[in-house]
Protein backbone atom coordinates (compact mmCIF):
# COMPACT_ATOMS: atom_id res chain seq x y z
CA UNK A 1 0.00 0.00 0.00
CA UNK A 2 2.81 2.44 0.90
CA UNK A 3 4.24 1.67 -2.53
CA UNK A 4 1.15 2.97 -4.29
CA UNK A 5 1.13 6.13 -2.19
CA UNK A 6 4.80 6.78 -2.91
CA UNK A 7 4.30 6.12 -6.62
CA UNK A 8 1.22 8.34 -6.79
CA UNK A 9 3.00 11.16 -5.03
CA UNK A 10 5.94 10.99 -7.42
CA UNK A 11 3.49 10.97 -10.35
CA UNK A 12 1.71 14.02 -9.00
CA UNK A 13 5.00 15.93 -8.95
CA UNK A 14 5.87 14.68 -12.44
CA UNK A 15 2.43 15.62 -13.75
CA UNK A 16 2.83 19.15 -12.41
CA UNK A 17 6.25 19.54 -14.03
CA UNK A 18 5.33 18.03 -17.40
CA UNK A 19 2.10 20.04 -17.65
CA UNK A 20 4.12 23.17 -16.98
CA UNK A 21 6.61 22.25 -19.72
CA UNK A 22 3.77 20.92 -21.93
CA UNK A 23 5.42 17.58 -22.70
CA UNK A 24 3.55 14.23 -22.57
CA UNK A 25 3.47 12.76 -19.09
CA UNK A 26 3.07 9.03 -19.91
CA UNK A 27 6.80 8.29 -20.51
CA UNK A 28 7.66 9.92 -17.20
CA UNK A 29 5.12 7.80 -15.31
CA UNK A 30 6.79 4.71 -16.75
CA UNK A 31 10.26 6.03 -15.95
CA UNK A 32 9.10 6.77 -12.40
CA UNK A 33 7.94 3.16 -12.16
CA UNK A 34 11.25 1.86 -13.49
CA UNK A 35 13.11 4.02 -10.99
CA UNK A 36 11.04 2.86 -8.01
CA UNK A 37 10.66 -0.77 -9.05
CA UNK A 38 12.63 -3.93 -9.73
CA UNK A 39 15.00 -2.37 -12.23
CA UNK A 40 15.73 0.67 -10.06
CA UNK A 41 15.74 1.32 -6.33
CA UNK A 42 13.40 -1.56 -5.50
CA UNK A 43 11.27 0.62 -3.22
CA UNK A 44 7.96 -0.42 -4.73
CA UNK A 45 6.79 -3.91 -5.65
CA UNK A 46 3.54 -4.80 -7.27
CA UNK A 47 1.00 -6.49 -5.01
CA UNK A 48 -2.64 -7.53 -5.13
CA UNK A 49 -3.91 -3.99 -4.60
CA UNK A 50 -1.70 -2.40 -7.23
CA UNK A 51 -2.56 -5.15 -9.71
CA UNK A 52 -6.26 -4.53 -9.12
CA UNK A 53 -5.82 -0.77 -9.54
CA UNK A 54 -3.79 -1.28 -12.73
CA UNK A 55 -6.46 -3.55 -14.14
CA UNK A 56 -9.09 -0.90 -13.38
CA UNK A 57 -6.94 1.65 -15.20
CA UNK A 58 -6.75 -0.50 -18.31
CA UNK A 59 -10.47 -1.32 -18.24
CA UNK A 60 -11.50 2.31 -17.84
CA UNK A 61 -9.08 3.40 -20.57
CA UNK A 62 -10.72 0.96 -22.96
CA UNK A 63 -14.25 1.87 -21.84
CA UNK A 64 -13.40 5.51 -22.49
CA UNK A 65 -12.11 4.66 -25.94
CA UNK A 66 -15.37 2.82 -26.67
CA UNK A 67 -17.40 5.88 -25.65
CA UNK A 68 -15.58 7.92 -28.27
CA UNK A 69 -16.16 5.45 -31.08
CA UNK A 70 -19.40 6.40 -32.75
CA UNK A 71 -20.04 3.81 -35.45
CA UNK A 72 -22.44 5.99 -37.46
CA UNK A 73 -19.91 8.81 -37.59
CA UNK A 74 -17.18 6.48 -38.78
CA UNK A 75 -19.52 5.11 -41.45
CA UNK A 76 -20.19 8.66 -42.66
CA UNK A 77 -16.46 9.30 -43.12
CA UNK A 78 -15.62 5.89 -44.49
CA UNK A 79 -13.39 6.92 -47.38
CA UNK A 80 -11.28 9.33 -45.30
CA UNK A 81 -10.88 6.78 -42.54
CA UNK A 82 -10.10 3.86 -44.82
CA UNK A 83 -7.41 5.27 -47.12
CA UNK A 84 -5.20 6.71 -44.42
CA UNK A 85 -5.96 3.89 -42.02
CA UNK A 86 -5.00 1.11 -44.41
CA UNK A 87 -1.73 2.77 -45.43
CA UNK A 88 -0.84 3.31 -41.79
CA UNK A 89 -1.77 -0.26 -40.82
CA UNK A 90 0.14 -1.96 -43.61
CA UNK A 91 3.32 0.07 -43.50
CA UNK A 92 3.76 0.02 -39.73
CA UNK A 93 2.54 -3.51 -39.05
CA UNK A 94 4.80 -4.96 -41.76
CA UNK A 95 7.90 -2.99 -40.77
CA UNK A 96 7.29 -3.70 -37.09
CA UNK A 97 6.68 -7.39 -37.64
CA UNK A 98 9.57 -8.05 -40.02
CA UNK A 99 12.00 -6.09 -37.87
CA UNK A 100 11.11 -7.86 -34.64
CA UNK A 101 11.12 -11.28 -36.31
CA UNK A 102 14.56 -10.64 -37.82
CA UNK A 103 15.80 -9.49 -34.41
CA UNK A 104 14.97 -12.90 -33.03
CA UNK A 105 11.51 -12.66 -31.47
CA UNK A 106 9.09 -15.55 -31.96
CA UNK A 107 6.16 -15.21 -34.37
CA UNK A 108 3.63 -14.37 -31.65
CA UNK A 109 6.02 -11.98 -29.89
CA UNK A 110 6.70 -10.25 -33.19
CA UNK A 111 2.99 -9.86 -33.78
CA UNK A 112 2.54 -8.29 -30.34
CA UNK A 113 5.49 -5.94 -30.81
CA UNK A 114 4.23 -5.03 -34.28
CA UNK A 115 0.82 -4.07 -32.88
CA UNK A 116 2.36 -1.92 -30.16
CA UNK A 117 4.69 -0.51 -32.82
CA UNK A 118 1.73 0.31 -35.08
CA UNK A 119 -0.71 1.91 -32.68
CA UNK A 120 -0.01 5.60 -31.98
CA UNK A 121 -1.19 7.28 -28.82
CA UNK A 122 -4.59 8.87 -29.37
CA UNK A 123 -4.26 10.95 -26.21
CA UNK A 124 -0.88 12.35 -27.25
CA UNK A 125 -1.93 13.07 -30.85
CA UNK A 126 -5.08 14.91 -29.84
CA UNK A 127 -3.45 16.85 -26.99
CA UNK A 128 -0.68 17.89 -29.36
CA UNK A 129 -3.16 19.09 -32.00
CA UNK A 130 -5.01 21.19 -29.42
CA UNK A 131 -2.00 22.51 -27.52
CA UNK A 132 0.06 23.33 -30.59
CA UNK A 133 -2.99 25.01 -32.14
CA UNK A 134 -3.06 22.89 -35.24
CA UNK A 135 -6.75 22.05 -35.31
CA UNK A 136 -7.39 24.12 -38.40
CA UNK A 137 -4.74 22.39 -40.53
CA UNK A 138 -6.34 20.01 -42.99
CA UNK A 139 -3.91 17.31 -41.85
CA UNK A 140 -5.45 17.45 -38.37
CA UNK A 141 -8.66 15.86 -39.52
CA UNK A 142 -6.66 13.08 -41.16
CA UNK A 143 -4.75 12.50 -37.93
CA UNK A 144 -7.96 12.40 -35.89
CA UNK A 145 -9.60 9.83 -38.16
CA UNK A 146 -6.37 7.84 -38.26
CA UNK A 147 -6.58 7.52 -34.49
CA UNK A 148 -10.16 6.27 -34.76
CA UNK A 149 -9.11 3.66 -37.32
CA UNK A 150 -6.27 2.48 -35.09
CA UNK A 151 -8.75 2.05 -32.23
CA UNK A 152 -10.90 -0.14 -34.46
CA UNK A 153 -7.88 -2.26 -35.41
CA UNK A 154 -7.05 -2.64 -31.71
CA UNK A 155 -10.49 -4.17 -31.11
CA UNK A 156 -9.96 -6.67 -33.93
CA UNK A 157 -6.48 -7.44 -32.61
CA UNK A 158 -7.77 -8.04 -29.06
CA UNK A 159 -10.36 -10.46 -30.40
CA UNK A 160 -7.90 -12.32 -32.65
CA UNK A 161 -5.13 -12.78 -30.14
CA UNK A 162 -7.37 -13.89 -27.29
CA UNK A 163 -9.21 -16.35 -29.53
CA UNK A 164 -5.86 -18.18 -29.61
CA UNK A 165 -6.44 -21.79 -28.69
CA UNK A 166 -10.18 -21.83 -28.05
CA UNK A 167 -12.89 -23.36 -30.16
CA UNK A 168 -13.51 -20.50 -32.57
CA UNK A 169 -17.23 -21.12 -33.07
CA UNK A 170 -18.09 -21.26 -29.36
CA UNK A 171 -15.84 -18.22 -28.82
CA UNK A 172 -17.64 -16.21 -31.51
CA UNK A 173 -21.06 -17.28 -30.22
CA UNK A 174 -20.14 -16.13 -26.70
CA UNK A 175 -18.87 -12.78 -27.98
CA UNK A 176 -21.91 -12.19 -30.15
CA UNK A 177 -24.17 -13.17 -27.24
CA UNK A 178 -22.62 -10.61 -24.91
CA UNK A 179 -22.61 -7.96 -27.65
CA UNK A 180 -26.32 -8.66 -28.23
CA UNK A 181 -27.10 -8.26 -24.52
CA UNK A 182 -25.14 -4.98 -24.37
CA UNK A 183 -26.93 -3.51 -27.36
CA UNK A 184 -30.32 -4.64 -26.16
CA UNK A 185 -29.61 -2.96 -22.82
CA UNK A 186 -28.52 0.27 -24.44
CA UNK A 187 -31.38 0.20 -26.93
CA UNK A 188 -34.35 -0.85 -24.78
CA UNK A 189 -33.05 0.59 -21.54
CA UNK A 190 -32.12 3.93 -23.04
CA UNK A 191 -34.74 5.93 -21.13
CA UNK A 192 -33.81 4.18 -17.89
CA UNK A 193 -30.09 4.83 -18.42
CA UNK A 194 -30.67 8.49 -19.17
CA UNK A 195 -32.92 8.86 -16.11
CA UNK A 196 -30.11 7.42 -13.95
CA UNK A 197 -27.49 9.69 -15.51
CA UNK A 198 -29.65 12.77 -14.95
CA UNK A 199 -29.67 12.37 -11.18
CA UNK A 200 -27.32 14.50 -9.14
CA UNK A 201 -26.65 12.09 -6.28
CA UNK A 202 -24.07 9.28 -6.23
CA UNK A 203 -26.11 7.00 -8.50
CA UNK A 204 -24.71 7.95 -11.93
CA UNK A 205 -21.10 7.44 -10.90
CA UNK A 206 -21.90 4.25 -8.97
CA UNK A 207 -23.81 2.90 -11.95
CA UNK A 208 -20.98 3.69 -14.39
CA UNK A 209 -18.41 2.00 -12.17
CA UNK A 210 -20.57 -1.04 -11.55
CA UNK A 211 -21.53 -1.46 -15.20
CA UNK A 212 -17.91 -1.42 -16.35
CA UNK A 213 -16.78 -3.82 -13.62
CA UNK A 214 -19.70 -6.19 -14.13
CA UNK A 215 -19.04 -6.37 -17.86
CA UNK A 216 -15.36 -7.07 -17.26
CA UNK A 217 -15.84 -9.78 -14.65
CA UNK A 218 -18.70 -11.42 -16.53
CA UNK A 219 -16.54 -11.60 -19.67
CA UNK A 220 -13.71 -13.14 -17.66
CA UNK A 221 -16.14 -15.71 -16.31
CA UNK A 222 -17.24 -16.57 -19.85
CA UNK A 223 -13.64 -16.74 -21.07
CA UNK A 224 -13.91 -13.95 -23.63
CA UNK A 225 -11.55 -10.95 -23.72
CA UNK A 226 -12.82 -8.48 -21.13
CA UNK A 227 -10.81 -5.72 -22.79
CA UNK A 228 -12.86 -6.05 -25.96
CA UNK A 229 -16.17 -6.33 -24.12
CA UNK A 230 -15.48 -3.19 -22.12
CA UNK A 231 -14.89 -1.30 -25.37
CA UNK A 232 -18.16 -2.73 -26.68
CA UNK A 233 -19.90 -1.53 -23.52
CA UNK A 234 -18.54 1.94 -24.21
CA UNK A 235 -19.77 1.85 -27.80
CA UNK A 236 -23.21 0.67 -26.65
CA UNK A 237 -23.46 3.33 -23.93
CA UNK A 238 -22.33 6.01 -26.37
CA UNK A 239 -25.73 5.70 -28.05
CA UNK A 240 -27.39 7.10 -24.90
CA UNK A 241 -25.50 9.98 -23.31
CA UNK A 242 -21.74 9.64 -23.98
CA UNK A 243 -20.85 12.98 -22.39
CA UNK A 244 -22.42 12.01 -19.08
CA UNK A 245 -20.67 8.64 -19.08
CA UNK A 246 -17.37 10.32 -19.92
CA UNK A 247 -17.86 12.71 -17.06
CA UNK A 248 -18.60 9.91 -14.58
CA UNK A 249 -15.88 7.54 -15.79
CA UNK A 250 -13.15 10.19 -16.05
CA UNK A 251 -12.12 10.26 -12.35
CA UNK A 252 -11.68 6.46 -12.29
CA UNK A 253 -9.79 6.50 -15.59
CA UNK A 254 -7.50 9.37 -14.63
CA UNK A 255 -6.42 7.93 -11.29
CA UNK A 256 -6.27 4.23 -12.09
CA UNK A 257 -4.48 4.82 -15.38
CA UNK A 258 -1.63 6.58 -13.58
CA UNK A 259 -1.29 3.52 -11.33
CA UNK A 260 -1.38 1.36 -14.47
CA UNK A 261 1.51 3.26 -16.09
CA UNK A 262 3.65 3.39 -12.96
CA UNK A 263 3.25 -0.28 -12.14
CA UNK A 264 3.96 -1.20 -15.72
CA UNK A 265 7.29 0.54 -15.10
CA UNK A 266 7.70 -1.15 -11.72
CA UNK A 267 7.42 -4.65 -13.21
CA UNK A 268 10.08 -3.98 -15.83
CA UNK A 269 13.13 -6.06 -15.13
CA UNK A 270 16.51 -5.51 -16.76
CA UNK A 271 18.14 -8.55 -15.19
CA UNK A 272 17.09 -10.96 -17.97
CA UNK A 273 19.77 -9.70 -20.35
CA UNK A 274 18.42 -6.77 -22.28
CA UNK A 275 19.76 -6.19 -25.75
CA UNK A 276 19.96 -2.40 -25.96
CA UNK A 277 21.09 -2.54 -29.57
CA UNK A 278 17.92 -4.39 -30.53
CA UNK A 279 15.74 -1.93 -28.63
CA UNK A 280 17.47 1.03 -30.26
CA UNK A 281 16.83 -0.42 -33.72
CA UNK A 282 13.13 -0.89 -32.97
CA UNK A 283 12.81 2.67 -31.64
CA UNK A 284 14.51 4.18 -34.68
CA UNK A 285 12.41 2.06 -37.02
CA UNK A 286 9.27 3.13 -35.16
CA UNK A 287 10.00 6.74 -36.04
CA UNK A 288 11.05 5.99 -39.63
CA UNK A 289 8.06 3.78 -40.39
CA UNK A 290 5.59 6.44 -39.24
CA UNK A 291 7.46 8.86 -41.52
CA UNK A 292 6.97 6.49 -44.47
CA UNK A 293 3.28 5.91 -43.70
CA UNK A 294 2.77 9.62 -43.00
CA UNK A 295 4.31 10.74 -46.28
CA UNK A 296 2.36 8.11 -48.23
CA UNK A 297 -0.87 9.22 -46.52
CA UNK A 298 -0.04 12.86 -47.21
CA UNK A 299 0.46 12.12 -50.89
CA UNK A 300 -2.66 9.94 -51.11
CA UNK A 301 -5.03 12.30 -49.28
CA UNK A 302 -3.63 15.83 -49.54
CA UNK A 303 -1.45 15.38 -52.62
CA UNK A 304 1.62 16.60 -50.80
CA UNK A 305 4.52 14.86 -49.11
CA UNK A 306 4.89 17.90 -46.83
CA UNK A 307 1.40 17.24 -45.48
CA UNK A 308 2.72 13.80 -44.67
CA UNK A 309 5.43 15.40 -42.57
CA UNK A 310 2.75 17.07 -40.48
CA UNK A 311 0.88 13.78 -40.05
CA UNK A 312 4.15 12.09 -39.08
CA UNK A 313 4.98 14.77 -36.51
CA UNK A 314 1.73 14.20 -34.66
CA UNK A 315 1.58 10.40 -34.78
CA UNK A 316 5.08 9.37 -33.69
CA UNK A 317 4.20 9.02 -30.02
CA UNK A 318 3.15 5.51 -28.97
CA UNK A 319 1.47 5.43 -25.61
CA UNK A 320 -1.42 4.01 -23.66
CA UNK A 321 -2.56 1.37 -26.15
CA UNK A 322 0.93 0.04 -26.81
CA UNK A 323 1.37 -0.44 -23.06
CA UNK A 324 -2.05 -2.04 -22.82
CA UNK A 325 -0.97 -4.60 -25.44
CA UNK A 326 2.30 -5.20 -23.58
CA UNK A 327 0.53 -5.72 -20.26
CA UNK A 328 -2.15 -7.99 -21.71
CA UNK A 329 0.00 -10.25 -23.85
CA UNK A 330 3.68 -9.41 -23.56
CA UNK A 331 6.44 -11.50 -22.00
CA UNK A 332 8.95 -9.58 -19.79
CA UNK A 333 11.33 -9.09 -22.71
CA UNK A 334 8.54 -7.86 -24.99
CA UNK A 335 7.32 -5.60 -22.16
CA UNK A 336 10.72 -3.97 -21.78
CA UNK A 337 11.02 -3.47 -25.52
CA UNK A 338 7.60 -1.85 -25.71
CA UNK A 339 8.34 0.31 -22.65
CA UNK A 340 11.47 1.65 -24.33
CA UNK A 341 9.52 2.15 -27.56
CA UNK A 342 6.87 4.20 -25.75
CA UNK A 343 9.38 6.30 -23.81
CA UNK A 344 11.56 7.12 -26.84
CA UNK A 345 8.77 7.74 -29.37
CA UNK A 346 6.59 9.79 -27.04
CA UNK A 347 9.42 12.12 -26.05
CA UNK A 348 10.63 12.55 -29.63
CA UNK A 349 7.01 12.81 -30.76
CA UNK A 350 6.32 15.72 -28.46
CA UNK A 351 9.15 17.66 -30.12
CA UNK A 352 8.20 16.78 -33.68
CA UNK A 353 4.60 17.77 -32.91
CA UNK A 354 5.75 21.14 -31.62
CA UNK A 355 8.16 21.91 -34.45
CA UNK A 356 6.64 20.10 -37.45
CA UNK A 357 5.14 23.32 -38.79
CA UNK A 358 8.47 25.15 -38.71
CA UNK A 359 10.19 22.08 -40.14
CA UNK A 360 7.72 22.09 -42.98
CA UNK A 361 8.21 25.81 -43.61
CA UNK A 362 11.97 25.30 -43.53
CA UNK A 363 11.83 22.61 -46.18
CA UNK A 364 9.56 24.75 -48.35
CA UNK A 365 11.93 27.73 -48.10
CA UNK A 366 14.88 25.52 -48.89
CA UNK A 367 13.07 24.32 -52.02
CA UNK A 368 12.35 27.89 -53.08
CA UNK A 369 15.89 29.07 -52.56
CA UNK A 370 17.38 26.24 -54.53
CA UNK A 371 15.36 26.85 -57.68
CA UNK A 372 16.48 30.43 -58.52
CA UNK A 373 20.13 29.85 -57.57
CA UNK A 374 20.18 26.94 -59.95
CA UNK A 375 18.91 29.20 -62.74
CA UNK A 376 21.67 31.75 -62.07
CA UNK A 377 24.29 29.07 -62.44
CA UNK A 378 23.00 27.82 -65.76
CA UNK A 379 22.75 31.43 -66.96
CA UNK A 380 26.44 31.90 -66.53
Amino acid at each position, binding site marked *: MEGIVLALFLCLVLALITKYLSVPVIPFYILAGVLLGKAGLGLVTSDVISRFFSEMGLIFLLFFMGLGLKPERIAANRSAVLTSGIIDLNVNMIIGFVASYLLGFSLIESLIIASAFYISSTAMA*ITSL*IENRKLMLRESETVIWL*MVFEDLILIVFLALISAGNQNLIIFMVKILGVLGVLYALAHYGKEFLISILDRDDELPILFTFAAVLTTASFSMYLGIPESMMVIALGVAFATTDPDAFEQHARPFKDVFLVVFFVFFGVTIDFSGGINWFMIAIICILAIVSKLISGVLTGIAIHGSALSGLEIWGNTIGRGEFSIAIAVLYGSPLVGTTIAALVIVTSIIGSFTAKYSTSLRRGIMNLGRKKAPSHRVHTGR
Partner: protein
Amino acid sequence: MFFIISLFRRFILSHIIIYFRIISLMSAMSLRSLNLPGVGTKYEFQTDKGDTVAIFFTKTGTIQMYTLQKGCNTPSAAEMTPVEARRLGNILTGAIIEADQESVEIAFSALADLRVTIHSFLIPKAVAGRTIEDLQIRAKTGATVIAVCRHDMNIVNPAPSFVFETGDAALVIGESDQIKMFEREIMVD
Protein backbone atom coordinates in the same frame (compact mmCIF):
# COMPACT_ATOMS: atom_id res chain seq x y z
CA MET B 1 -50.56 42.61 -17.16
CA PHE B 2 -47.73 42.12 -14.69
CA PHE B 3 -48.13 38.42 -15.04
CA ILE B 4 -47.73 38.66 -18.79
CA ILE B 5 -44.66 40.84 -18.48
CA SER B 6 -43.04 38.53 -15.98
CA LEU B 7 -43.81 35.58 -18.24
CA PHE B 8 -42.26 37.44 -21.14
CA ARG B 9 -39.21 38.22 -19.06
CA ARG B 10 -38.80 34.63 -18.10
CA PHE B 11 -39.28 33.54 -21.69
CA ILE B 12 -36.63 35.95 -22.90
CA LEU B 13 -34.14 34.96 -20.24
CA SER B 14 -34.42 31.28 -20.92
CA HIS B 15 -34.38 31.61 -24.68
CA ILE B 16 -31.74 34.25 -25.18
CA ILE B 17 -28.93 31.80 -25.64
CA ILE B 18 -30.87 29.54 -27.98
CA TYR B 19 -32.02 32.40 -30.20
CA PHE B 20 -28.57 33.84 -30.20
CA ARG B 21 -27.23 30.62 -31.64
CA ILE B 22 -29.95 30.34 -34.25
CA ILE B 23 -29.45 33.89 -35.44
CA SER B 24 -25.72 33.58 -35.69
CA LEU B 25 -26.09 30.31 -37.55
CA MET B 26 -28.54 31.81 -40.01
CA SER B 27 -26.43 34.81 -40.84
CA ALA B 28 -23.33 32.81 -41.71
CA MET B 29 -24.39 31.33 -44.98
CA SER B 30 -21.58 28.89 -45.69
CA LEU B 31 -21.16 27.71 -42.11
CA ARG B 32 -20.01 24.13 -41.72
CA SER B 33 -20.14 22.30 -38.43
CA LEU B 34 -18.34 19.09 -37.78
CA ASN B 35 -17.91 16.70 -34.87
CA LEU B 36 -14.35 15.52 -34.43
CA PRO B 37 -14.01 12.41 -32.27
CA GLY B 38 -11.99 13.09 -29.14
CA VAL B 39 -11.53 16.77 -29.99
CA GLY B 40 -14.91 18.46 -29.94
CA THR B 41 -17.01 20.49 -32.36
CA LYS B 42 -15.69 22.52 -35.23
CA TYR B 43 -17.45 25.44 -36.91
CA GLU B 44 -15.93 26.81 -40.04
CA PHE B 45 -17.02 29.40 -42.53
CA GLN B 46 -15.62 31.36 -45.38
CA THR B 47 -16.20 35.08 -45.77
CA ASP B 48 -17.21 36.63 -49.10
CA LYS B 49 -13.65 37.83 -49.55
CA GLY B 50 -12.26 34.34 -49.17
CA ASP B 51 -10.87 34.46 -45.65
CA THR B 52 -11.63 31.49 -43.44
CA VAL B 53 -12.61 31.53 -39.79
CA ALA B 54 -12.75 28.33 -37.76
CA ILE B 55 -13.91 27.90 -34.18
CA PHE B 56 -13.31 24.76 -32.13
CA PHE B 57 -15.13 23.98 -28.93
CA THR B 58 -12.68 21.47 -27.49
CA LYS B 59 -13.52 18.80 -24.93
CA THR B 60 -11.06 20.39 -22.54
CA GLY B 61 -13.49 23.31 -22.27
CA THR B 62 -11.43 25.91 -24.08
CA ILE B 63 -12.41 27.56 -27.33
CA GLN B 64 -9.89 28.00 -30.11
CA MET B 65 -10.42 30.46 -32.91
CA TYR B 66 -8.38 30.29 -36.09
CA THR B 67 -8.31 32.82 -38.88
CA LEU B 68 -6.76 32.12 -42.24
CA GLN B 69 -6.26 34.94 -44.68
CA LYS B 70 -7.01 34.16 -48.31
CA GLY B 71 -3.92 32.87 -50.10
CA CYS B 72 -2.08 32.27 -46.86
CA ASN B 73 -0.95 28.88 -45.63
CA THR B 74 -0.52 29.20 -41.90
CA PRO B 75 -3.53 30.18 -39.80
CA SER B 76 -3.20 32.22 -36.65
CA ALA B 77 -4.92 31.01 -33.54
CA ALA B 78 -6.26 32.33 -30.26
CA GLU B 79 -7.32 30.24 -27.31
CA MET B 80 -10.13 31.50 -25.10
CA THR B 81 -11.98 30.51 -21.97
CA PRO B 82 -15.79 30.31 -22.33
CA VAL B 83 -16.16 33.70 -20.63
CA GLU B 84 -13.67 35.31 -23.00
CA ALA B 85 -15.39 33.70 -25.96
CA ARG B 86 -18.76 35.11 -24.89
CA ARG B 87 -17.18 38.53 -24.56
CA LEU B 88 -15.80 38.25 -28.07
CA GLY B 89 -19.23 37.16 -29.26
CA ASN B 90 -20.78 40.28 -27.73
CA ILE B 91 -18.24 42.51 -29.43
CA LEU B 92 -18.89 40.86 -32.78
CA THR B 93 -22.65 41.32 -32.52
CA GLY B 94 -22.01 45.05 -32.29
CA ALA B 95 -22.84 45.58 -28.64
CA ILE B 96 -21.30 48.33 -26.57
CA ILE B 97 -18.79 47.11 -24.05
CA GLU B 98 -17.30 49.32 -21.41
CA ALA B 99 -15.27 48.29 -18.41
CA ASP B 100 -18.10 46.85 -16.35
CA GLN B 101 -21.07 47.39 -18.56
CA GLU B 102 -22.01 45.42 -21.59
CA SER B 103 -24.98 45.22 -23.82
CA VAL B 104 -26.46 42.65 -26.14
CA GLU B 105 -28.96 43.32 -28.85
CA ILE B 106 -31.06 40.42 -30.03
CA ALA B 107 -33.07 40.43 -33.22
CA PHE B 108 -35.97 38.03 -33.66
CA SER B 109 -36.25 37.75 -37.39
CA ALA B 110 -39.46 35.72 -37.16
CA LEU B 111 -41.23 38.43 -35.12
CA ALA B 112 -41.21 41.33 -37.61
CA ASP B 113 -37.54 41.87 -36.85
CA LEU B 114 -38.20 42.62 -33.21
CA ARG B 115 -35.06 44.00 -31.57
CA VAL B 116 -34.52 44.04 -27.84
CA THR B 117 -31.46 45.21 -26.00
CA ILE B 118 -30.20 43.93 -22.69
CA HIS B 119 -27.77 46.20 -20.91
CA SER B 120 -25.95 45.88 -17.61
CA PHE B 121 -25.49 48.91 -15.35
CA LEU B 122 -23.51 49.41 -12.16
CA ILE B 123 -25.82 51.01 -9.60
CA PRO B 124 -24.50 54.47 -8.59
CA LYS B 125 -24.62 55.82 -5.04
CA ALA B 126 -27.58 58.07 -5.79
CA VAL B 127 -29.78 55.10 -6.63
CA ALA B 128 -28.68 52.88 -3.74
CA GLY B 129 -31.31 52.47 -1.04
CA ARG B 130 -34.22 53.09 -3.39
CA THR B 131 -36.68 50.54 -4.72
CA ILE B 132 -37.63 49.77 -8.31
CA GLU B 133 -41.14 51.06 -7.63
CA ASP B 134 -39.87 54.22 -6.02
CA LEU B 135 -37.61 55.00 -8.98
CA GLN B 136 -40.59 54.61 -11.36
CA ILE B 137 -38.33 52.85 -13.84
CA ARG B 138 -41.10 51.47 -16.08
CA ALA B 139 -43.15 54.67 -16.09
CA LYS B 140 -40.20 56.96 -16.76
CA THR B 141 -38.24 54.91 -19.26
CA GLY B 142 -40.26 51.90 -20.43
CA ALA B 143 -37.34 49.62 -19.65
CA THR B 144 -37.49 46.73 -17.19
CA VAL B 145 -34.98 45.44 -14.66
CA ILE B 146 -34.84 41.70 -15.25
CA ALA B 147 -31.98 40.70 -12.97
CA VAL B 148 -29.63 42.11 -10.38
CA CYS B 149 -26.22 40.73 -9.58
CA ARG B 150 -25.16 41.26 -5.98
CA HIS B 151 -21.88 39.83 -4.60
CA ASP B 152 -21.74 37.12 -7.28
CA MET B 153 -25.33 36.12 -6.53
CA ASN B 154 -28.04 36.63 -9.11
CA ILE B 155 -31.54 37.80 -8.30
CA VAL B 156 -33.71 37.11 -11.32
CA ASN B 157 -37.00 39.02 -11.78
CA PRO B 158 -36.64 41.31 -8.73
CA ALA B 159 -39.95 42.44 -7.18
CA PRO B 160 -41.03 46.14 -7.39
CA SER B 161 -40.15 46.46 -3.70
CA PHE B 162 -36.54 45.39 -4.38
CA VAL B 163 -34.03 47.79 -2.80
CA PHE B 164 -30.83 48.55 -4.70
CA GLU B 165 -27.48 48.63 -2.93
CA THR B 166 -24.18 50.16 -4.05
CA GLY B 167 -22.14 47.63 -5.96
CA ASP B 168 -25.19 45.99 -7.50
CA ALA B 169 -25.16 45.37 -11.23
CA ALA B 170 -28.60 45.60 -12.82
CA LEU B 171 -29.58 43.93 -16.07
CA VAL B 172 -32.09 46.06 -17.92
CA ILE B 173 -34.13 45.00 -20.95
CA GLY B 174 -35.91 47.21 -23.47
CA GLU B 175 -35.66 48.85 -26.88
CA SER B 176 -32.40 50.72 -27.42
CA ASP B 177 -34.18 54.09 -26.93
CA GLN B 178 -35.63 52.91 -23.64
CA ILE B 179 -32.17 51.78 -22.52
CA LYS B 180 -30.73 55.21 -23.40
CA MET B 181 -33.59 56.82 -21.47
CA PHE B 182 -32.81 54.58 -18.49
CA GLU B 183 -29.18 55.65 -18.59
CA ARG B 184 -30.16 59.35 -18.72
CA GLU B 185 -33.08 59.35 -16.26
CA ILE B 186 -32.28 56.74 -13.65
CA MET B 187 -28.51 56.35 -13.58
CA VAL B 188 -27.81 60.07 -13.20
CA ASP B 189 -30.59 60.60 -10.66
